[in-house]
């Protein structure tokens, strides 16, 4: 299964709406990096509104993809993390401290715009 990556001006938008198995998560990591390379996108929003569980593996894949994208010159913002997911991440001891986040897609795009243009 593949997660669709949309291009909107100089940004890439991803809404994760499937149950993330390991293969899908890793495939997504690779697809996103290729898409950043092909489009020269400077900003990426990954929306997690429909994701009802993030375990340590998915957290690692997400954290890695943020750092890898940064190496390629693109800033990633994670948006829409559900309250229950935020609570379980803290229980797991995963703070996502160095990962930029925003409440929803709109605020995520605002954040990117501020950082890239401001």
């Amino acid at each position, binding site marked *: 299964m593949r997660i669709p990556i949309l291009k909107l001006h100089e940004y890439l938008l991803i809404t994760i709406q499937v*149950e993330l*198995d*390991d*293969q899908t998560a890793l495939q997504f990591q690779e697809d996103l990096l290729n898409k950043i390379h092909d489009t020269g996108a400077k900003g990426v929003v990954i929306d997690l509104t429909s994701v*009802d*569980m*993030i*375990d*340590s*593996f998915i*957290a*690692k894949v997400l954290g890695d993809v943020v750092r890898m994208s940064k190496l390629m010159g693109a800033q990633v913002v994670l948006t829409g993390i*559900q*309250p*229950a*997911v935020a*609570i*379980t991440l803290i*229980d*797991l*001891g*995963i703070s996502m401290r160095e990962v930029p986040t925003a409440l929803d897609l709109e605020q995520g795009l605002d954040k990117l715009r501020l950082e890239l243009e401001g």
Partner: protein
Amino acid sequence: MNIQSCVEVCNEWDIVSARQLGRNMAKELGFGNVDQARITTAISELARNIYLYAGNGKICIEAAEKMGKRGLKIIATDNGPGIKDIRKVMEDGYTTSGGLGAGLPGVKRLMDEFMIDSVVGSGTEIIATKWLR
């Protein structure tokens, strides 16, 4: 009402099946949103450990009862290599696979009761329980 449901874990997709089973049972037993996420996450961690370190094993989920309390019990068993130093694997950040090392200490915090029994060369059993509040 002490029915047990099990999922054999031998590949990555079985991890998804195990956590879906867990979420459904947690919902049925009346757990709220946050505890459902905790239980599902704990199952995901235990199932992935079985897949990664033991190759295959089993996740069983059942309704639990103790002194008037009701809850959900996860039993993860495998016949893998076992764990030599249990204290070490319960430390945050300890990993032999380049992971975050968050799994086992995380499961202990996500659940209310946690028991690990492992014999080197013969396998591991982990039992974790969450009580309804």
